[in-house]
């Protein structure tokens, strides 16, 4: 959790060192503040958190991912405070021996960050400030991870 910006490049270098010689796959995700939401112009985002509880909620998500897949390194960096349009908000980096684990864990962590990490976001729009709500689509994505992994790969 930090107010400062992060560097994908630095975190990637650290990840490769930490993951070691059995690492074959690194998946990353970076979330950015979009300048437009539907037809409204957004000049920035205010991210509020609950010091202590937010960290615990994020550690819990990472622990669940590490428990589910074989991962060599996981790093989540999340910014808080006021972020201008175009700014980086969140970074997830996952290293694994194999591609499927790296992709799945990275997407899993993002889907749970979107629904279970303790953050509140307010959009700073041309027509005022508005606290945003989770979408039902976010919950559907999270719930898609429920149950045991099946033998068949299913896409959407």
């Amino acid at each position, binding site marked *: 959790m930090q107010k400062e910006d992060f560097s994908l490049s630095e975190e990637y270098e650290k990840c490769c060192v930490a993951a070691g010689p059995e690492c074959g796959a690194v998946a990353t995700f970076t*979330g950015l503040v979009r300048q437009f939401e539907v037809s409204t112009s957004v000049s920035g985002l205010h991210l*509020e958190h*609950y010091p*202590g*509880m937010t960290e*615990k909620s*994020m550690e819990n998500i990472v622990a669940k991912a590490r428990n589910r897949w074989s991962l060599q390194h996981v790093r989540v960096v*999340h910014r808080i405070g006021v972020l201008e349009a175009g700014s980086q*908000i*969140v970074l997830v980096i996952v290293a694994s021996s194999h591609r499927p684990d790296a992709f799945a864990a990275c997407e899993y962590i*993002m889907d749970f*960050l*979107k*629904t*279970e*990490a*303790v*953050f*509140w*976001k*307010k959009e700073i729009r041309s027509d005022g400030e508005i*606290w*945003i*709500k*989770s979408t039902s689509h*976010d919950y559907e994505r999270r719930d898609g991870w429920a149950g045991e992994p099946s033998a068949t790969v299913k896409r959407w």
Partner: protein
Amino acid sequence: MRVNVLFFASLKEDLGCAEIELQLSELASRADLFDCLTNELGSARVAPLFAENVSIAINQSIEKGEFTLQSGDEVAFLPPITGG
């Protein structure tokens, strides 16, 4: 006993404060907490805390049912989280 109550995000704005210290009796219940808040802040101002989608965390753990408070507990009112 004294208990610290925190308000986050839209609730902080609705109530116009981020934090309030309450004087409660030992083992105060959920109902005692709401009564005390209503006395301190007025019923109009605390109305948003009664919304169904507002969660209460005691010492940073969500408590969905009944609870009793102890001295030094940290109580927080959380609007629905919108994630990272």
